[in-house]
Each structure stands twice: as structure tokens, then as C-alpha cells.
């Protein structure tokens, strides 16, 4: 007993020391230091994003130069449209690249099929405390009874509202602020709608992470499926409330249908917004570079409106991770590269490239990211603020892919009632959940 207390005291003291020195030395002490590799070799690395490939090239070169001379990294870009087909094919034939990008919603499939390398022993070996990352970033990448972390998170994406200032001005409305509520939002959508000019108030229901799930999350309900992937949550009170709120806006004529948008994806809504046809859309932080370059009208971003009762504004957060193949011939090398890419040093390359918000929580890196967009009045900080109360993607791809689009189409294109659409969705999800299938 005495020993335990002593241990606790020592630990607390150590913690206090870490916190103190951490505060003082924040500039010098990296959150995650990189380390040298044991033995050089050749690695195949797959990404889906063209821009990331060039960032990666720089950062892997730095890794080779400083930590692993003689190593070779072959980077291949496979566009998103085919990436997962390819990864799945490669997994089936045992040809997975050594290291590749993973997304939270796909993780379950590969982890459950034992296709991925458990990185936890390496995190332990390298002395990385995996709780430095926020739960929304890494929890979806944990697997097994001990919650081993199988991925090194690269970045985060959050969602906020993109709005057309010119249309607000034309309607004589004040610009929204971060404490606006659903009610304010609905009032703005109504005032901004102008059928004569073929202009809608809002389009915020689209599929996947930048659409309706954010509204569900704000009610306090986990969107689509529960954290443990055990139950469909679409029929929970919060889901029904959020979906009915959005459907109500559409029924009033403030939001276009999916078909008028040209599709159910976030890109379709964003394109419609870019064309000046809708005043307010939900959009991810990944759209910032495109918006800064292309949008000709005055615009800004603001955090998602707050749920009137919970008072919460919640963003779905998605983090892309690096994972290694379970059957890689160079597991140590792969883990070492992932460590580097997650380290402060490796993440700097991402922070400095516009558009990629670094997963590494170092405040310095976060600021570099905000500053990387250059001299702009756009409220980029809104996306960083959105990370504070965020929700990781817990549904896995079978559900995410099959249902996301269908539920959006059913409710926001075909006029099916929320109750009926969510019933259909949950019926399907329940057949896909591993626990209930057994």
C-alpha cells in the first residue's frame, strides 16, 4: 500500500515536472521526436492524394537523409476513385504496399482481417505516449482488447460553414458568429432563399463527414453507429431530431434537392455554392485552398451552429493515418518511417503545405498551418476551434458507403420520411454489424 502511494506520488511529481518543463520548453521539446532506423531498406508507399505525394517526397527525403541513410521509398498515387479497390485487391492477393494511407471508416475491415501491422510495440519502444493525440484522431485506429494503436495519424479534417458574404449583404443579414444556433441558422436560410434568382439558403445535408452527421453529433448522439460498432444510432432521438430539422429546411424550400445539386457528395454542394446558387454550405477544411483560389465572391467560414439545447457545435473529425501491412518484409523500417511522419519534424512538412492540418498536436505546428494560407481575412481558426469538440468517424465503410448516400437520397431527394428512411438504413446496418450478425 505504502509502495503504491509512493509510486503515485512519484508519478504525480514527474507529471508535474513534465507539465512545467513542457510549458517552458514547448518551443524546443518536440511532442514526438523522430528516431534513427535500425537498418535501411526499400519501402512502397501508397497515397490517394496528389498533393500529399509531393509533401511526402520532401519529408521522406528528410527521413532518409537524417534518420535512415540508404533507404528508398517508392511513392505511388492512386486517386481516391480507385484507391480502395486497389488496396482491397492488394490485400486479397497479399500484395499490400509496406506503408499506405488509411481512413478511419475503412480501418475496421483491414484490422478485422489481420491485414495490418500492430504498431503499438513500436510506439512503446519509441516511447511515444499515444494519448498525446486527441481521441477523435486516434480512437478509430485502435484495435484489439488492449486498444493498440495501428496507425500514425497524419492530419485532421474538420467541418465548418462556408458562406457567401455577398448574399448575406444582399439579404441585409449580419454575418454569423461562432455562437449562432440552429434557430439562427434556420432564420438565415429562410432569409437567404431567393427563388427568383434561383438561389437557395443552404445545402448542408450531404453524405459523409461534412454533411448531416455533424448535425446529429451536435445533439450528443454518435452518428450512424455507436463507438463499439455495435448498434445503429440513426433511429436515436438525436438523429431523428437532426434529420427532421434539416428536412424541415428543405420542405420549406430553403435547400435544394440532391438532384438539383447534381449529386449527394460534399463536392456537389460545394460546386453549387461556388456557382453562387446557394448561400451557405457545410464544407471541410480540405476545401480551403480550392476556395481561396477559385471563389470570386466575398466569403468566409464560421463554426457550425450550436444545438439550441446542448449548446454544442460539433464537427465530424477525420484523420488519415499511415498504416503498415501485416506481411511487410520490413516491419521495423515501416514503423520507423511512420514514426518520423508522425513526429514534429515530419509533420512540419504537412503543416507548411497549405491544406493539410497536422495531426501532431504541437501548438506551434497548428499555428504554422493557419499561417500557411498566407495573408487572408478568412477565419481559418474556425477549423482549429472545431477540433475541440469533435467526433471521430466510427462507422465502418460497409455501412458508411452503403447507407450514407442512400439515406441522403431517400430523405433529401425522394422525400421519404426521416422515420422510414432511418428504419431502412438501420435494417441494413444491423445486418452488417459483426456483433449482431453472430
Amino acid at each position: 500500500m505504502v509502495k503504491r502511494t509512493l509510486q503515485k506520488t512519484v508519478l504525480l511529481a514527474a507529471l508535474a515536472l513534465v507539465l512545467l518543463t513542457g510549458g517552458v520548453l514547448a518551443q524546443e521539446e518536440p511532442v514526438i521526436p523522430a528516431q534513427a532506423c535500425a537498418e535501411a531498406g526499400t519501402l512502397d508507399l501508397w497515397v490517394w492524394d496528389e498533393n500529399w505525394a509531393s509533401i511526402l517526397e520532401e519529408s521522406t527525403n528528410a527521413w532518409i537523409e537524417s534518420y535512415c541513410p540508404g533507404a528508398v521509398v517508392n511513392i505511388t498515387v492512386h486517386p481516391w476513385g480507385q484507391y480502395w479497390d486497389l488496396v482491397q485487391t492488394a490485400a486479397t492477393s497479399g500484395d499490400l504496399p509496406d506503408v499506405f494511407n488509411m481512413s478511419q471508416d475503412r480501418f475496421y475491415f483491414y484490422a478485422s482481417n489481420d491485414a495490418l501491422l500492430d504498431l503499438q510495440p513500436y510506439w512503446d519502444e519509441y516511447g511515444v505516449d499515444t494519448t498525446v493525440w486527441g481521441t477523435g484522431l486516434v480512437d478509430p485506429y485502435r484495435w484489439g482488447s488492449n486498444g493498440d494503436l495501428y496507425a500514425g495519424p497524419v492530419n485532421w479534417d474538420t467541418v465548418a460553414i462556408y458562406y457567401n458574404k455577398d448574399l448575406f449583404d444582399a439579404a441585409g443579414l449580419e454575418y454569423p458568429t461562432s455562437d449562432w444556433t440552429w434557430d439562427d441558422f434556420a432564420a438565415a436560410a429562410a432569409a437567404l432563399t431567393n427563388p427568383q434568382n434561383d438561389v437557395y439558403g443552404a445545402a448542408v445535408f450531404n453524405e459523409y463527414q461534412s454533411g448531416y452527421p455533424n448535425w446529429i453529433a451536435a445533439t450528443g448522439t454518435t452518428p450512424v453507429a455507436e463507438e463499439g460498432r455495435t448498434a445503429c444510432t440513426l433511429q436515436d432521438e438525436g438523429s431523428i431530431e437532426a434529420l427532421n430539422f434539416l428536412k424541415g429546411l428543405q420542405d420549406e424550400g430553403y435547400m435544394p434537392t440532391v438532384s438539383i445539386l447534381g449529386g449527394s457528395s460534399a463536392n456537389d454542394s460545394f460546386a453549387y455554392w461556388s456557382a453562387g446558387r446557394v448561400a451557405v454550405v457545410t464544407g471541410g477544411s480540405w476545401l480551403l485552398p480550392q476556395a481561396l483560389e477559385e471563389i470570386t465572391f466575398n466569403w468566409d467560414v464560421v463554426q457550425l451552429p450550436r444545438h439550441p439545447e446542448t449548446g454544442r457545435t460539433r464537427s465530424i473529425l477525420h484523420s488519415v493515418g499511415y498504416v503498415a501491412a501485416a506481411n511487410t518484409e520490413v516491419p521495423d523500417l515501416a514503423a520507423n518511417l511512420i514514426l518520423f511522419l508522425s513526429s514534429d519534424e515530419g509533420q512540419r512538412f504537412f503543416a507548411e503545405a497549405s491544406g493539410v492540418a497536422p495531426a501532431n498536436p504541437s501548438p506551434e505546428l497548428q499555428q504554422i498551418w493557419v499561417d500557411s494560407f498566407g495573408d487572408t481575412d478568412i477565419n481559418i481558426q474556425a477549423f482549429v476551434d472545431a477540433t475541440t469538440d469533435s467526433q471521430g468517424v466510427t462507422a465502418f465503410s460497409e455501412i458508411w458507403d452503403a447507407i450514407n448516400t442512400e439515406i441522403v437520397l431517400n430523405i433529401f431527394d425522394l422525400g421519404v420520411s426521416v422515420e422510414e428512411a432511418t428504419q431502412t438504413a438501420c435494417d441494413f446496418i444491423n445486418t452488417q454489424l459483426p456483433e449482431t450478425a453472430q
Partner: protein
Amino acid sequence: MNPTRDNRPSFLDRLSLLDRLVAYSVLIVGAVLMVLPFVWMVSTACKPSSELNRLPLRWIPEEPTCLENVRSLNETSPDFDQYLRNSIILTVGRTVGQFITCSLAAYGFARFEFPGKRVLFAASLALLMVPFQAIVVQEYLLLRRLDWLYTFAALIIPGIFSAFALFLLRQAFLQIPIELEEAAMMDGANPLQVLWSVTLPLSLPALAAFAVITVQAAWNDFLFPVIVSNSAATRPLTVGIALLQGERSTPWNLLMMGSLLATLPMLILFILLQRYFIEGVALTGSRR
């Protein structure tokens, strides 16, 4: 080919003015419906993005941006040129390959007696009954086992064997008077030389029809390439533009430009070789 073809003028050809009026009205309305999608494709392909979601619709873009759209397409889909190249490789490979294997086989079946000939010919023709869709899964598994997936070999080699081309070319070869070949034989030519210098030159119209059928089928093939090509290295245009459509962020003007560029080569070929395309269809029809 059409023994009862009869081109002499007949009193049946005399049409009243009303007949003509009705006939032309139907033809013109039909032709407009046929052509409208092409016109709309070209019109949209030349519109700037800002003119896409705008009412009322305009047939002629206010500020045409054809060339800029080609450029943006290349930015959006940096591998577009390579898709084009792959389509050409795929098409040429299959056509030349099929020409070689099938003209050899057709010649063998048309002019030579050997044990098992009937069985082999019947077996080849029986495969005409198997729709490709029914075996595409097995085809994929076979190519995977051969470790050919995602190579040009996978795209081309299964496509160079054809029961249909065999049947078609054999029919053509059978129509050539055998005496001409025998004369060449007498001069000491071996069968390959006879095939090359006598039989093939005399079958040019059939070969041309065969070529356009094969070229067109290869250029427009989708189901097979979508399964056996997975990267820009071998992906043909059809799969490339399908991918653009599937990405859901590609604006319509670029999609139309992509479709236009994918269609143009066949349209040009058709305009140049119209006759053979039409004969090709008639031949397709004669296969049963």
C-alpha cells in the same frame, strides 16, 4: 453477298409528294433526336464552369472555352493523355493480334483437312453462345493466377482470340476461288505465303469490315478493362472517363470534354470508313 439484291428501278420507287413529306419529317425528327446529345456534349464541353448551373439553357456558350477546358481536363485528370495512349495500344494490339490468330485459323479451317477439324471448329463456334459477362469473373481469376492483372497482356491477349472473327474470315476465305490458291501452290509457295499473297488480298472488304468491328469493340470496351486495369499505366479512356464521373467532383463541362475526346476518334473513323462499319453490322447479323 445478297444474291436477290435488286437495284433496277421499280414503279414502287415512285413516291407521292405527301409520302416524301411524311418520310422526311420522320427522318428529320429522328435525326435531330439522334444528334442532339452530340450537340449538347460539344456545347457543354466548350462552356466555362460558370455557365453550367445557369438558366435558361444556352446552346451556344456565351464565352466558349473549348481549349481551356481541354487544359483543365488535363489538370483534373493528369493521366488523360496516357489513357488515350493506352486505348490506342489496346485497340491496335487486339486488332492486329486477332487478325493474325483468326486469319491463320480461318485459313486452316477453310482449306485444310485434318483429324478433329469438325470437333475443333464446332467447339470454337460453340463459344459464341457464351456471353462474355458470364465468364468475366473467371477470366479475372485466371488472369490473376497467371499474374497478368493490370498489365497490357491482360488487356490484350484474351482479346486476340475470337470465335466470331474466325467464323467471319472463314466465310470470306471460302468465297475465294480455290483455283487461285492452287496456282500459287503449284509455283511452290507454302500455305503462309499463299494466305499472305493470294487469300488475304482477295478478302480485303471482309478484312476491312472485320477490322472496324474489332477496333470499335476494343476502343469502347469497358467491363473488362475496368476489372483488369487499375492504374494509369494501362487504363484505357473508357475507364478513365468513368473514373472522372465516379469522382463526383468533376464539373460537367470537363466530363463532356472527356467524353468528346473519347468519342472523336471513332466518329472520325466512322466518317472515313462508313461503308465498312455498315458492312460490319450486316456481317455481325450473319453470324447466326
